[in-house]
């Protein structure tokens, strides 16, 4: 606006400027009203389109809930909690509890990716786990390392992993598998890119899984290893998806880290398990608040 330069006297130029400005203000107010209407319309349009886009996925969520229901764990373990924070509507994390002869099994997996493709892999993972368990149905002794190896074979063949064709998928999943002995004499653990934490007598011991996934790896297919955790009745075994330690957050936007994870577990371990779940939920939600969630997150605690 070059108003001062066009001044020709109070009666002529100024009036005109005043009128022009008034006109301009009216126009702008009208434009803003239009823009407000557009904002509302666009918000509605996007919300509706989003509802349409995700209708199938919301239905798919029901299938996932049916494929690994929480109550299944309750039927096998008497004292446990599972906190899970999916990134999308469906999740790439799954947990599964099973019984087999002399053992109770708890598995927690984090499939590659998240959302729909992650969810597709959960179905593959559940089938791989169930099929592997079927092989050992009559075995007196269970070896989680063998189960992980069998699952890896299943996943790799299913996805045609490692081939150079266009159809092959070299994804897989990270997995923690704990076999709780029914006689209470410890828990056998094997892990694929995931760790497990054992709380006993006020101290937390962490056990590292093998650094390879259930799936194709450029490092090849070395055998998985297993560890007998000397867990006693009343101890707690924590299964955690690896994504938690690498989740950025907090006031300084840093990784959650194993250090904070262990500190969190030690702070809650003496509480009843359902209370632990609330603290875990609060700690993790607070950590992520205002930051971008990078993957589905799951923490499970099971009392021996």
């Amino acid at each position, binding site marked *: 606006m070059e108003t001062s330069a066009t001044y020709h006297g109070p009666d002529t130029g100024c009036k005109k400027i005043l009128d022009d400005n008034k006109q301009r203000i009216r126009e702008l107010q009208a434009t803003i009203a239009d823009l407000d209407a557009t904002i509302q319309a666009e918000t509605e349009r996007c919300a509706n389109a989003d509802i349409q886009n995700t209708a199938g996925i919301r239905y798919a969520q029901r*299938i996932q809930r049916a494929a690994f229901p929480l109550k299944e764990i309750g039927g096998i373990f008497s004292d446990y909690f599972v906190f899970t924070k999916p990134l999308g509507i469906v999740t790439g994390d799954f947990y599964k509890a099973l019984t087999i002869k002399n053992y109770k099994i708890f598995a927690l997996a984090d499939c590659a990716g998240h959302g729909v493709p992650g969810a597709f892999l959960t179905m593959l993972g559940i089938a791989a786990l169930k099929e592997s368990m079927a092989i050992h149905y009559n075995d007196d002794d269970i070896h989680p390392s063998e189960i992980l190896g069998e699952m890896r074979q299943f996943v790799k063949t299913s996805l045609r992993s490692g081939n150079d064709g266009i159809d092959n*998928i070299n994804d897989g999943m990270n997995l923690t598998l704990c076999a709780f002995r029914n006689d209470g004499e410890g828990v056998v653990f094997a892990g694929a890119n995931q760790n497990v934490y054992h709380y006993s007598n006020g101290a937390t011991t962490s056990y590292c899984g093998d650094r390879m996934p259930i799936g194709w790896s450029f490092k090849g297919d070395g055998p998985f290893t297993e560890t007998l955790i000397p867990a006693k009745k009343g101890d707690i075994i924590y299964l955690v998806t690896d994504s938690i330690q690498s989740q950025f957050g907090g006031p300084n936007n840093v990784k959650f880290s194993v250090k904070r994870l262990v500190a969190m577990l030690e702070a809650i371990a003496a509480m009843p398990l359902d209370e632990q779940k609330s603290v875990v939920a609060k700690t993790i939600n607070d950590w992520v608040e205002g930051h971008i969630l990078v993957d589905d997150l799951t923490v499970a605690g099971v009392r021996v």
Partner: protein
Amino acid sequence: MNEYAELQSEIARQEAQIEELEQLAQEKRDEIQRITQEYETTASDLKAGIHYAERIQRAVIPTDTEFKALFGDCFVYFVPRDIVSGDFYTYAASSDCKIAVVADCTGHGVPGGLLSMLGLSALKDLLSENVISMDLNPGEILDSLRKFVLTSLAESDESDGTTVRDGMDFTLCIFDNGMTHMRFATANHTIYVARNGEIIKLKGSRTPIGRHPKQDEPFESFTFDLQPDDMVYLCSDGIQDQFGGADDVKFTTRRLAEMLLDQSVNDTRTQLANISKIVDDWQAGRMQYDDQTLIGIRI
């Protein structure tokens, strides 16, 4: 001059208001762009995810080339409604037999695709090479698969108590290596055989693989003698249920049987081309109703 000063200050006030309003308008334009962009990012992420899921699914479903390598003279018409599919087909083979499977999971798109992943994975193990032979009871495979589906999908999920009634319709055919006969079982599916200018419909059990009032009744197994030149068709209900034509009605099993009979005299490559065209013409730009799968095998 007093009046002049008043006017000047009024103009200054107006200009300040104009600037404020222009800034506000710009903020609103930015807001609109943000809303649109945010939606588009979400939608395109979602789509990218579904496309990646499609790759995962396609890795698990055999290619038509692999299918042809086993069954020789055959065609595979596989047209999912959405990017991922609730229909799937697969095969298995051992030294004395070959198996062809067509399945149609409840729904389509992502939920259908999730179920198909579950079904395919379970089936893969049920049909491992050391298990299958001509002595295998196809009905028992369907029984095992049903057991897997029922135990995999809990009766109700804890959040709202609703039952997941999903499952799959299914066709499983076991052919001897000489293709002289086949043993088959179906769940809510019909197999069509074109022979000497006639269509023979083979109907197995009328129950799905999933939760059903008759879920405790075993699936029946049948044996069917084949003749050279027979065309055996395995299909989902996607084509017959497709709305279209002049009166916007379903294609129906009647038209499906007629189409298969007409086409059965052609070589399988021509059949595939013709069937694609017939179904396309029927749909004539309408929405595809469900996933469509049709496999034709020349004996």
